C-alpha cells in the first residue's frame, strides 16, 4: 500500500464528516461560479459590443438631444463623412407598459429607412419590414419582448409616455430575431417621424444619437475624431466613439457593485477554506495515535505531513469537482437560460466561462492544500511517545 492510497483511504475514516465537507466545498464552489459568471456575463457586453459601429452623442450629457440636421451630414443630404458606410439615428422614447410599469424595456424611435441597415444582426422578414415602413404607427419588437408581454403580429398596443406625455398607440407589424447574442432582444422600435410630428413645434427635429458603421474598423478612432471636428464649431458639440468604448465607459458607474461582488466571491472562498481546515484539523487530532504508530514503524515526519496534505487535496478535488458538476445544470442551464430569455438586455450571454470553471477547481484544490498546511505542520512535529500515549 502506497502513501497516496493510504491517504485516500483515510478520508473514509469518518464518512459523515467527509461527505459534509465535500458538500460544503461544493456549495462554496457553486456560489463562487455563480458570482464569477455573473461578473463575466456583465463584462461580456463589452467584449461583444461592435468595434466597427460608432455612436455620436451629445458631448457632455447623454440626456440632451442633437439637432436632426447633424444626421444629414452623414447620409448625403448635406454631406458625407469619409469612412462612414451607413448611418441611422435613434431617439430614446422611454415608454412604459400601461399596467406592468416596472418591467423595463427600451422604446426607441428610429429612422425606418436606415435602422436595420446599421443593425444587420437584428433580422426581420422582408415583408414585415416593408409593412412596418408603410405604417407610421407601426412597431417592430424583439422576440423576447413579444414573449414577455404576450404580444403578437397585428396587435394594437397602447404604451404610457414618460418623457413624451400621453398614451401612445402602436400596431405590432414585425418581430425581429437576433442573429448575434449581443443584441438586446427586448426593444420596441417605432417611427421617429411619427413621434416628431406629434410633438409641439419647439421640440421638433431633435434626435438622441447617430449610429454609423465604418468601412474599416481599424480607422474607427480617426473617423470618430473627424466627426467630432465637423460639429466642433456648432451650438452643440458631439462625442463619437465605438459601441465597445461606450459600453466600457458605462461600466464605470457599476464599478462599485462589480467590486463588491468581487470581494464577496473571495469571502465564500474564505468560508470554504475554514470548512476544509476544520475538517482536516479534526482528522489530525483524532488520528494522533495512528500517526504515532506510523512514526514508530519508521515513517518520517515529512511522510506524515504529506499524508495530511494529500488528504486535504483529495477532499478539495472531490468538493471542487462536485461543485462544478452541479454548477453546470444549475447556473448554466437553469439560471443562465432564464436570464438570457428574460433579462437579455442586461445579460445577453450567461454561461460559465472555462476560465471561471478552471479557477474554481484550482481554488478548491489550492485552498484545501493551504488549509491542510497548519495541521500538517503540527502533525509532523509529533513526538512518537506522546503521540502513542494520546487517545482521541
Amino acid at each position, binding site marked *: 500500500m502506497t502513501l497516496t492510497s493510504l491517504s485516500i483511504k483515510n478520508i473514509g475514516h469518518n464518512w459523515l464528516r467527509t461527505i459534509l465537507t465535500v458538500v*460544503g466545498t461544493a456549495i462554496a464552489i457553486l456560489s463562487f461560479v455563480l458570482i464569477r459568471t455573473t461578473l463575466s456575463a456583465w463584462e461580456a457586453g463589452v467584449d461583444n459590443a461592435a468595434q466597427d459601429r460608432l455612436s455620436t452623442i451629445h*458631448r*457632455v450629457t*447623454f440626456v440632451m438631444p442633437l439637432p436632426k440636421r447633424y444626421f444629414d451630414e452623414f447620409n448625403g443630404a448635406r454631406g458625407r463623412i469619409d469612412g462612414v458606410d451607413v448611418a441611422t439615428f435613434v431617439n430614446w422614447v422611454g415608454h412604459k407598459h400601461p399596467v406592468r410599469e416596472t418591467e423595463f424595456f427600451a422604446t426607441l424611435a428610429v429612422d425606418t429607412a436606415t435602422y436595420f441597415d446599421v443593425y444587420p444582426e437584428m433580422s426581420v422578414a422582408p415583408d414585415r419590414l416593408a409593412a412596418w415602413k408603410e405604417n407610421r404607427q407601426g412597431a417592430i419588437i424583439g422576440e423576447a419582448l413579444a414573449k414577455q408581454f404576450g404580444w403578437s403580429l397585428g396587435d394594437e398596443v397602447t404604451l404610457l409616455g*414618460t418623457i413624451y*406625455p400621453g398614451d401612445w398607440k402602436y400596431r405590432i407589424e414585425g418581430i425581429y430575431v437576433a442573429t448575434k447574442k449581443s443584441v438586446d432582444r427586448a426593444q420596441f422600435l417605432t417611427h421617429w417621424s411619427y413621434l416628431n410630428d406629434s410633438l409641439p413645434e419647439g421640440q421638433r427635429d431633435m434626435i438622441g444619437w447617430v449610429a454609423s458603421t465604418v468601412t474599416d474598423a481599424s480607422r474607427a478612432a480617426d473617423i470618430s475624431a473627424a466627426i467630432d471636428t465637423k460639429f466642433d464649431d456648432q*451650438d452643440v458639440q458631439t462625442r463619437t466613439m465605438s459601441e465597445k468604448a461606450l459600453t466600457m465607459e458605462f461600466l464605470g458607474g457599476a464599478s*462599485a457593485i462589480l467590486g463588491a461582488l468581487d470581494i464577496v466571491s473571495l469571502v465564500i472562498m474564505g468560508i470554504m477554506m475554514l470548512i476544509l481546515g*476544520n475538517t482536516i*484539523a479534526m482528522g489530525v487530532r483524532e488520528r494522533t495515535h495512528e500517526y504515532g504508530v506510523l512514526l514508530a514503524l519508521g515513517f518520517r515526519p515529512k511522510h506524515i505531513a504529506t499524508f495530511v496534505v494529500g488528504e486535504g487535496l483529495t477532499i478539495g478535488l472531490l468538493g471542487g469537482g462536485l461543485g462544478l458538476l452541479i454548477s453546470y445544470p444549475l447556473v448554466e442551464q437553469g439560471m443562465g437560460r432564464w436570464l438570457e430569455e428574460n433579462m437579455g438586455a442586461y445579460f445577453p450571454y450567461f454561461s460559465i466561462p472555462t476560465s471561471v470553471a478552471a479557477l474554481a477547481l484550482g481554488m478548491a484544490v489550492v485552498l484545501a492544500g493551504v488549509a491542510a498546511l497548519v495541521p500538517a505542520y503540527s502533525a509532523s512535529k509529533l513526538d512518537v511517545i506522546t503521540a502513542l500515549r494520546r487517545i482521541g
Partner: protein
Amino acid sequence: MVPVRYNVRNLLVRRTTTLFAALGVGLVVFVLAASLMLNEGLARTLDRSGSPATAIVLRKGSDSEMPSSVEDRAISLIKVAPGVKQGADGQPMVLGESVVVLFQDLANGKGKSNATLRGMPLDRVQAFRPEVKIVEGRMAAPGSDEVVVGTRVVGRFEGLQIGQSIELRKARAVKVVGVFEADGSSFESEIWGDVEYIRSAFGREASVSSVRVKLDSPAAYDAFEVAVERDKQLGLEVMPELEFYSKQSENTSMFIVAMGSLIAVFFSIGAMIGAMITMYGSVAHRKREIGVLRALGFSRSAIMVSFLLESVMLSIIGAVLGTIAALGMGLVEFSMLNFTTFSEITFQFTATPEILVRAIVFGGVMGVLGGFLPAIRAARTPPIEAMRG
C-alpha cells in the same frame, strides 16, 4: 439542565475548530449585515434630501427630475396655488430647478459615470435648504457661471476641484468656486449652479425640471395637490418631497437587499455545514462524557438542549465577530449608480441597532439549524454502550 459552564469549557478546549466554525458563520453574518447597512445608508441619504411640508411638482408620468419638464408659465400658476408659504422676503416659497446629468470621467480612471448638475436660483437656496453649508471656497454668485460642488463628488470625478472648470458646451463652461455640505443628504453628490446659465447652455430656456414648494403646513398639502393637478392642460403631478425621495431609492434598494439576502442564504448553507462538522466531531469525542451525564440522571432532552446551546454559542461568537467587522465598514464610502435617476450617488454603510440584532439573530438561527442533527445524535447515545467507549 446541563450547566452552561460545561459547554463554554468544551468550546475553549477545542479552540481551533471552534474558531474555524465561528469564523465561517462570522463571514456570512458580515455579508448580510454589510448589505443591510448599505441599503440603510442609501435610504437615509435620500430621506435626508426631503423635508416635511415640502411638495415637489413634476410633469405627469416622470419617475425622476431628469425626464420631467415644467414650463415657466406653470410656475407662476403654482405660486398662487393655495397653501404656498410666503418667505421672509414676501415672495412665495417656490423653487424651480433644472437638472441634467453630466457624463464625466471618474477620478479613479475607471471609466465614466453620471454626475448630477442642478441649476437653481442661487439667491434662494439658503431659505429653502438652510442645512447647506459652504465648507471650502465660497458660494457661487447668482446669475454667474460659477458652481459649487457637494463634498461627496469633489474627489469622485475629474475636474471638480476649486478653480477647475467643466465645459457644458463650446465657450460655456462652469467654474468651481466652492464645496458644500448638506447634512449627509444626496445633494452632497451633486453640482449646483445658476439655473439661467445652466438651462440656456443646454437650450432649455423657459422650462425647468422640477418645482419645489414649501407649504404652510403638512395639512395644506391636499388642497395644494388638488389645485395644481386640477388643470389637466398643465399635465403636472404633485408628490410630498419625502415620498418622492423614498421612491428614488426603491429600485436600487430592492436590488441591494435581494442580492445581499440571496448571497447570505447561499453562504449560510456552507457555514452551517461548517458548524455541523464541528458539532458532530464534538459529539463523537464526548461519547463517554455523554454516557456519564446520562448515567447521572440527565434526560435525553437535557443533553439535546445542551448541545444545541453549544452550537448556538459557537455561532453567536461568529456572528458577533462578523457584526463587528461590518461595523468597520461604516468608515467606507460607497458610490453607485442610482437606477432611477441614472446618476451617481455616494453614501456610507450605516448601522442601526435593528440591523445588528437581525444579523446576530441570523447567526443564532444558523447555529440552531447546524447543531440540530448533531444534538439529536448526542441525545440518542445509549448510556451503557457510551461509557464502555
